């Protein structure tokens, strides 16, 4: 079971990530694939527990957009840390669709991407078991200046420059 980092700190994960092959839907918050969501939407919504939807890196925001008000969490997959599509997906969820729920990075990410993740709108990261949490926490503090506006965690300085403050920042999207 992976740990989660929110603003650099590990948190309890109340969510159960459901495999498509498992028919039974447990009680409590569950994350399902987009396929499963489409198939079992009525059942999932009727449960009265929060539902999260997991998008593959090839699945675009448009596919979940009409349902966003019924989805409390969107998990975006990184099959490989090099596959940077989810950075755009997260940003689109925030900026284009005004999504205010939790956006979670799942799969293969590196601490060196942590600032980028937060600055494109992710709220949490599921980090692999055995990951060095100190490295992840430190990564949030490593670069204090950005040269372009992000979704979160920066304030204007001068010219294009922005001051980055991620570690202690409360998440502005209020999930």
């Amino acid at each position, binding site marked *: 079971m992976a740990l989660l980092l929110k603003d650099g700190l590990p948190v309890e994960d109340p969510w159960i990530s459901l495999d498509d092959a498992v028919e039974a839907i447990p009680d409590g918050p569950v994350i399902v694939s987009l396929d499963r969501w489409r198939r079992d939407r009525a059942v999932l919504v009727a449960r009265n527990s929060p539902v999260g939807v997991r998008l593959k890196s090839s699945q*675009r925001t448009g596919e979940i957009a009409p349902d966003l008000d019924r989805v409390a969490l969107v998990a975006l997959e990184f099959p490989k*840390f*090099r*596959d*940077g*599509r989810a*950075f*755009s*997906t997260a*940003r*689109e969820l925030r*900026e*284009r669709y005004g999504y205010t729920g939790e956006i979670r990075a799942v799969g293969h990410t*590196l601490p*060196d*991407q942590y*600032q*980028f*993740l937060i*600055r*494109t709108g992710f709220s949490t990261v599921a980090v692999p078991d055995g990951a*060095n949490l100190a*490295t992840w926490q*430190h990564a949030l503090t*490593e*670069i*204090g*200046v*950005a*040269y*372009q*506006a*992000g979704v979160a965690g920066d304030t204007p*300085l*001068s*010219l*294009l*420059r922005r001051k980055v403050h991620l570690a202690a920042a409360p998440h502005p999207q209020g999930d």
Partner: protein
Amino acid sequence: MTHLSSAGAAGIYHYDETDRRFLADRVEQFRRQVARRLSGALTEDEFKPIRLMNGLYLQLHAYMLRIAVPYGVLSSDQMRGLAAIGRRYDRGYGHFTTRQNLQFNWIKLVDVPQILADLAAIDMHAIQTSGNCIRNVTTDQFAGAVADEIVDPRVYAEILRQWSTLHPEFSFLPRKFKIAITGSDHDRAAIAIHDIGIRARRGAGGAVGFEILVGGGLGRSPFLGRRLADWVPEPDLLAYLEAILRIYNQYGRRDNIYKARIKILVHEVGVDRLREQIAAEFERIRGPHYRLDAGIVDAIRSHFAPPPFATLPAVSTALDQARREDPAFARWARSNLTPHQQPGYAAVTLSLKPTGGIPGDATSDQMEAVAALADRYSFGEIRVSHEQNLVLAHVRQDDLPALWRDLGPHGLDTANAGLVGDIISCPGLDYCALANARSIPLAQEISRRFADLDRQHRIGELKIKMSGCINACGHHHVGHIGILGVDKHGVETYQITIGGDATETAALGQVVGPAVGYDRVTDVVESLIALYLERRTDGERFIDTVARIGVGPFKEKVYGAAA
């Protein structure tokens, strides 16, 4: 000389505390990353993109460190710092590239964090000189100086440099991404062979806007950029680029490294559909968040204010006299000077292509000499051209004879800018792990064959560009004569093209005939030139003759003779 004191007065983006803090953070971050790699916390697979984003490549014999020279502009102090790094950590020289950067080819991994710290001390770095991110933005080497300039592209190149630096969304793109910008109608920045090519222009009332090309690129599948937009107003520049990059990041192919550049997306989707998608994205994100405020542009423009030029007559009698009296000087002045905006000044190309030399190489001694000459003659500022030469952009015409005499002892006075000897060449098999064939020794051989500078001047403008493999780092597709190393059953052979052009009349070269062996290439080049000299009409350049008479006669000349 009275103008000695104006050294350091040229337009350069000067770092302030914010920029320095960023760079210090970045150096420290890389130090930790190297430590994590050495401890095994990072696998080589995971470390690779991190070191690439810091300009560090693993080559055939050693690490290569590629240092960003933002849009090719250096202060003399920076040049001295680079010379010192070359001496301390490399073998006393460096290599200027077609991306206006500087490479050191013999670097040790353990030295890299310290080299980056040394670079930070001169406000330089190696960020985004490789990796699947937005690379160093390139521009016209005569920006802010050349007479035909409409908009100074350095202002926007600097804005783009900042905007693209550690961009949170666009640092893990499908593939590398190169942007070039020009501010003249005559394109010296080769914008048509970049992922995004930008031409800055002026509209009603002098307002600045941009024409945008997309999908240019060489390599295995060469394409010239297609026009995406005729006019993007200045405040929308970043929003429009964000829209392009966002579409590319989401839809660019990631299944095949050879199909991952945006040129393939343009080719597969079609430029018209892509334009619609980008326009829709642009309309969505256009607004205060991404707007490039005029105040920011003005503040950055102030860094590039003209240096304190003297008021001089347009014609220099000292220059005219030296031209009349010394044929060698006159020859150099004919090929290596470019008309300046300011009366009485000229932009000067210092050729890094001496006869038999390695194109783009400069020793630490030469770098220091250039720094001193820049201080004396050109407000302490130096440019790197994509043609792998150096430029002193603001020299008084009265000083040209003295500058020329000072260049001689350093081997920097070769009168061949834009001529046969001014060859662009990639490192090829001597350094590069991907090469099929040697390119440097061949460039040296061609250069020696045409050692007679008067002959080069008689031939006129002719751009030879050479790559050691299909990756085309030497831009062979757009060479007037292009030479490409191919591997034929383990034998080095070379495919030769003619008629390529990297300027505003961009064209891809056409293959002349079957590839030839290493020993034949120089003869083939000579035959092509011989035919051109036979057939040219008054004022026709090599590529003009190719355009007029076609490839056929050239083919016949080369292969008819061989058969």
